[in-house]
């Protein structure tokens, strides 16, 4: 089935099984690989991206859902985005694999709540990291909130 949508401002014109998870369409068909596979069951958040400004775990949503919509992946956030700047400043990543998902979740949180408390960050970002970067993630989200204010 032909499925057209926008991704990071560009046209995406796919001819795929409409039930294919958006994750595989983005990674394998469109070759945007920042969005990662982690669990396939919307449990870990490694595949987090935005569709029309809302946050989704793309392993558990079909590509058909994106039809006619605007999809944003980490590649679509500019280098100057406060989240990316804060992640650079605090040197958050270790292996780095889960970080795109965390950054997309954090970007969405700040969009809806520009000054989250620590508890709000903890309750809203439920992604999983195994290297143990969680303490820096908390700091980086707070730092990004400060950078957004400026």
């Amino acid at each position: 089935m032909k499925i057209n949508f926008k991704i990071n401002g560009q046209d995406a014109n796919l001819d795929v099984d409409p039930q294919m998870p958006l994750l595989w369409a983005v990674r394998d068909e469109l070759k945007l690989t920042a969005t990662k596979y982690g669990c396939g069951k919307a449990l870990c958040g490694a595949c987090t991206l935005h569709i029309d400004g809302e946050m989704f775990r793309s392993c558990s949503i079909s590509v058909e859902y994106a039809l006619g919509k605007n999809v944003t992946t980490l590649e679509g956030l500019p280098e100057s985005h406060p989240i990316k700047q804060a992640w650079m400043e605090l040197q958050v990543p270790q292996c780095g694999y889960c970080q795109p998902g965390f950054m997309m979740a954090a970007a969405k949180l700040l969009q809806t709540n520009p000054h989250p408390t620590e508890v709000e960050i903890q309750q809203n970002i439920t992604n999983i990291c195994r290297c143990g970067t969680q303490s820096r993630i908390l700091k980086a989200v707070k730092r990004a909130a400060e950078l957004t204010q400026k």
Partner: protein
Amino acid sequence: MSEDKKAFSRRKFLKRGAIALGGTVVASYLGCNPTRRFIAQKVENMDLPASISSFNPDFWFQILPDNHILLKSPKVEMGQGIFTGFAMMAAEELNVPLEQMRVEHANTATGIEDELGTGGSNSTSGLFKPIREMAAILREMLKLAAATIWKVPVNQVVTQNGILQYGDKKMTFFECVTATKSWVVPKTPALKPASEFKYIGKEVKRVDLKDKVMGTAKYTIDTHFPNMVYATMLPCPYFNAKLKSVKTAAAEQSPDVLKVVQQNGWCAVVAKTQYAALSAAQKLEATWDVPKLWQQAEMEAMVTVGKGNAVNVQKVGNAQSTLENGAGQVYKQAFRTPFGTHAPMEVNGTVAHVTKDMAIIVVGTQNTVPNKALIAKALGLDKKMVDIQIPYLGGGFGRKGRMGNVVETALLSKIMGRPVKMMFTREQEFQNSFYRPLTHHVLSAKIGEKGDIQAITHDQASPDMILKHIMGNSLPLKLLGADFISSGHGASLLYNIPNKSATLWNTEVPVPVGIWRGVGMYPNTFATESFMNELAHQTKKDAIDFRIGLLTDTKDEIAQRAKKVLEVLKEKSGWTTAKPAGIGRGVSIANDRKSIAGSVVEVAIVEGKIKVQRVTQVLDVGMILNPEGIRAQMEGCVMMGISGALYEVVTIKDSQISVSNFHELPLATLMDVPDIQTVILANAHEPYGVGEPPLAPIAPAIAGAILDLTGKMLRNLPLKL
């Protein structure tokens, strides 16, 4: 003279040679032998099979046309930050800005092979000297070449920022390389003294930071080849089953499926897309031959002190006799740690591109050499024709290296005649893997009438984690009786107690087991340091002062460094300040191959659950190379330590693994982040490991804090009130 000196001789350098390739100088080097040294330190005077004692990790440098210097790393970057440390060391001797260094994984086609793989926290510390020596030789080679080109004395050629200079004459490293046909290799120059270090020991940004923040860092599953197809393996629901039969018709009819392949006991679906492969695999109807349905209770019964082979690994005085005779109280307790899974966020995967006479295998592996041999054998290719290319690893923790279906993927590529990408599902990652083995520990102490500790014994039961994988068979285990390298890692007792002994009991279990971050330190420190907390509690002593009182041997460097770590912990953690209501404090230390790690933890009980509020981590790394990298590892170990101490458990039921996805394996999250304070000490003359040592003390410190708060000792991981 030491191994190091011998290995650094000019003869050995020339053995690998300095060769010119396409206008770039490539110098590879037969370096010293950190992995062997690590093993030698552990086993001391024991004889090892020859294959264990002949590891020769190599590495090389290359000058690129943009005058950047590329260092090809034999060790893999899986988050530990080793590429940054390597760049710092090389930049130091090459006298170039850090930004001029690039670090990439070596691929095996270049001849660089690292026999033992990446692990044991020795990548940065072990290559501290070889990388600097190699960089210094390269710098002098470039100066000699420039002196020849300019026909000037070499001692008047200087170099800075990748520019060679004599008076007004200047050229870049790359210009020098392109103008030089024949290279002179000098003797190893004297290395820069620590007082002149510009990068080593200083704050620098991670070299992989930008790629990882911008999302451009490439991992195995991000690899794409033209004409590539996707495969998925039929998952096996049991750890001990053989595939009896499989009905493939429905899968073969599934949309976009290219082929269903059945070979020696495994089955895979190959399809045009990942989705098509995964969908079709669900339509395979397999029957399995399961010889026996094993249960958790049977595993625990097998891995119990007193069963299997016993090997003594520490004997000071006569602990047994002291326990049995004379006045005083015998205090005895048993501890258990469970099976564990690594759970790297990146599942295992492989991309294979096999042609008639060549195999390109992209795989994030901690063990290239064994994988290469297996692939070559399966494909009937010469090992030289197998090129393993390594992207960044999305976490390893010991998991990436074996049982990754690398060979199966290579065979699928050969069968399909096109590149094949195969990745595990999370369910396969959790269920078709190997596990940190469960352990059992019995500790006994003789407490004298004045509360003095006269003797202590530690008996530990664990399956072998490493020996049978080094040799590919059970011979070393038979020869050695028990796995003293990994299971026995940390089993010996640190304190200066007049009579002490540590004994390993080996029983093999039917579940595949292997190394997990922290190796033996993780279970052994939980047991021994928990027991120390109990002894302090029993004798009504302060848990830090009690330990300091047992580190009395002033000639024992480890004991003195451990004492210092405890003193710093006491001060920095506010140990002697009044505890707020509802807070318990606990402490633990560990000597992990000469890195001394210590933790003080504060816990509270919130809504009936253990909550770690504050952690003070002190790590004496011997010598500080990359402080930012050390801090990151310490923070990571705090979180993994909390996760293991409070949540993680894998059990066996009917020969199946209890966890299938993250809903069944709760891990520490943002909710669990405590207030973390890290303190790095440097109280030796050489660097030691960083990636694993800070992990082991977390769980026993938490248990100690609960003992402090409630008076109740929790002796099994994960800790449950």
